[in-house]
């Protein structure tokens, strides 16, 4: 299944803490320039998988190729040049400004002191304008709202000029407006710059609306992998989440809409 069109290829990938297997024999491929969303219940191994792909965790079993090369053949800096990771939160005890944080995205491209040149500043400014935080560039990170902070982290990832961006539940603590704004932004990155976006998300409906491919995990194994309408069916979702769900067609277009069914409505389903 290896091909040049693939950004990430996982083969027999396993990972465990002690005797506990978190991921068992996973295989999938992420194509270049696609929006790939990993969904699944809590503890299904989503975040572990994302950390393996970003090189934070190292797998002892199985193969993982990034852009056609085994991840273990990359040194840290080389990987950082083609892959950016956006964690859920970033500590803010030390009051860096927005510009300082975004400029840090340049460091894989620079020497050990990370001395930024005019060119780097230009890239940082473009990244900030893209995510809509340019007006905040001299504000301190700890003064910003959650949504603004998220956009700063994404600007930092964009500033890194990667071919792949990996995000760990970027919409988890955002309101509806910020959720769609973040997702729109990632879609725009995909379409305008051809960046491959891999995202862990709890929100299956965001996955349905934006994802080119969804990966549904449960207990460290793949339940389903494919287009949203293939993955988000009543059967697969019930198998993964173990609760009653209503799946119908979204009024917005040709993709499924998932509605969890509260107990009081159970009689009518």
């Amino acid at each position, binding site marked *: 299944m290896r091909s040049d069109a693939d950004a990430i290829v996982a083969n027999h990938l396993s990972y465990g803490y002690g005797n506990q297997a978190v991921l068992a024999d996973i295989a999938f491929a992420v194509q270049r320039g696609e929006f790939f969303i990993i969904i699944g219940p809590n503890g299904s191994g989503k975040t572990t998988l994302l*950390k393996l792909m*970003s*090189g*934070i965790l190292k797998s002892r079993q199985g193969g993982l190729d990034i852009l056609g090369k085994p991840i273990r053949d990359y040194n*840290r*800096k080389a*990987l*950082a*040049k083609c*892959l*950016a*990771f956006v*964690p859920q*939160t*970033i*500590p*803010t*005890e*030390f*009051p*860096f*400004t927005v*510009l*300082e*944080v975004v400029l*840090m*995205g340049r*460091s*894989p491209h620079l020497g*050990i*002191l*990370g*001395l*930024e*040149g*005019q060119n*780097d*500043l230009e890239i940082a400014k473009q990244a900030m304008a893209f995510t809509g935080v340019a007006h905040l560039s*001299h504000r301190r990170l*700890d003064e910003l709202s959650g949504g603004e902070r998220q956009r700063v982290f994404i600007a930092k990832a964009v500033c*890194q000029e990667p071919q792949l961006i990996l995000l760990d539940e970027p919409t988890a603590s955002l309101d509806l407006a910020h959720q769609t704004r973040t997702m729109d932004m990632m879609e725009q990155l995909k379409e305008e710059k051809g960046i491959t976006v891999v995202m862990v998300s709890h929100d299956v409906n965001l996955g349905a609306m934006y994802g080119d491919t969804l990966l549904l995990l449960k207990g460290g194994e793949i339940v389903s992998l494919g287009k949203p309408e293939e993955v988000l069916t009543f059967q697969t979702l019930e198998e993964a989440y173990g609760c009653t769900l209503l799946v119908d067609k979204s009024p917005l277009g040709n993709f499924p809409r998932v509605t969890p069914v509260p107990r009081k409505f159970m009689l009518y389903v």
Partner: protein
Amino acid sequence: MTRQLNLKRISHDAAVPMLLKRLAIVSLSLLILLCGVMLLGLCMGSAESGFQAVVNALTGKKDGDPMMTAIIWQLRFPRVLMAVLVGAALSVGGLVFQALLRNPLAEPYILGISGGAAVGAIIGILMGFSRFPGVSATAFAGSMMTLLLVILMSSGETLLKKDALLLSGVMLNAFCSAIIMFLVSMAHDSRLHSIIFWLMGDLSIVDVGQVGILSALLFPCFILIFYLSHAMNLLLMGKEMAQTMGVNIRAVTVTLLVTTSFMVSITVANCGLLGFVGLVMPHLLRLLLGPDHRVLTPACALGGGAYMVVCDLLARVLPEQGEMPAGVITAIIGAPLFIILLKRSAK
């Protein structure tokens, strides 16, 4: 560090080769401050000497009072240089601990690292070692031991929790003090008085050779830390972020912790316990310059040196007769600051 004065940062707008420009401006201004303070340190003391006498002595004019020239060159000059080195080492040490442990309250003395070094140093002294390399080596061993202990004690489920870290440090400090008292009371010789005076942070018995060795040992450490200063910035963005930005976290952390412990131990071996020095300058400078460690590291070295010279100067001129240990002054200034910072970080 959540609530801070919103001071304007120096030259932040033009941004780029900006960093070097900023570094130059900051370093130069602090260097001028340092030189001014050093000059003051040379002028003042129990034997009154005017500014002119210092200038004469420094420029090597023979028309000055030879006695005065000797005092300035052989007593005050090494002492002032020593204060600069020690202040720089402890301030940079505080800066590094604060960044690595991501705790604005971390400081070699508070974490018990200095205490461990002191225990090691006293053992070395009692075993009759010379200051270099014997006592310095035992001090280093002591500080590494406490560093390991404090990290082991405070790393639980979530690595290095804020409160656990400080509590472990306080506990270790108390334990080290007890061992020091025990060792001191076991010693029955004439060195007792000098040990106690040394313990409280003393810069009075310094010769030029000692200053030379210390600077030869400290300068490579400063350069190494400056070299890793951008990695420290990235580490403050969280371990996962730093790792995916190309930082070898383990190598950088271990190198920095060992280097700072080494710096702290050799200053302790020479000048005893000077508490809270690593708190004052890093915080003041972070407030003025922002948290970029590429600027803060040289700034803390220069500013910390100046701060220590002032503390030592106060220790020399405040008492009516004789002098007090410089550690008394640093604690009087530093301990209240610690409490203020603690209150602020609790909010």
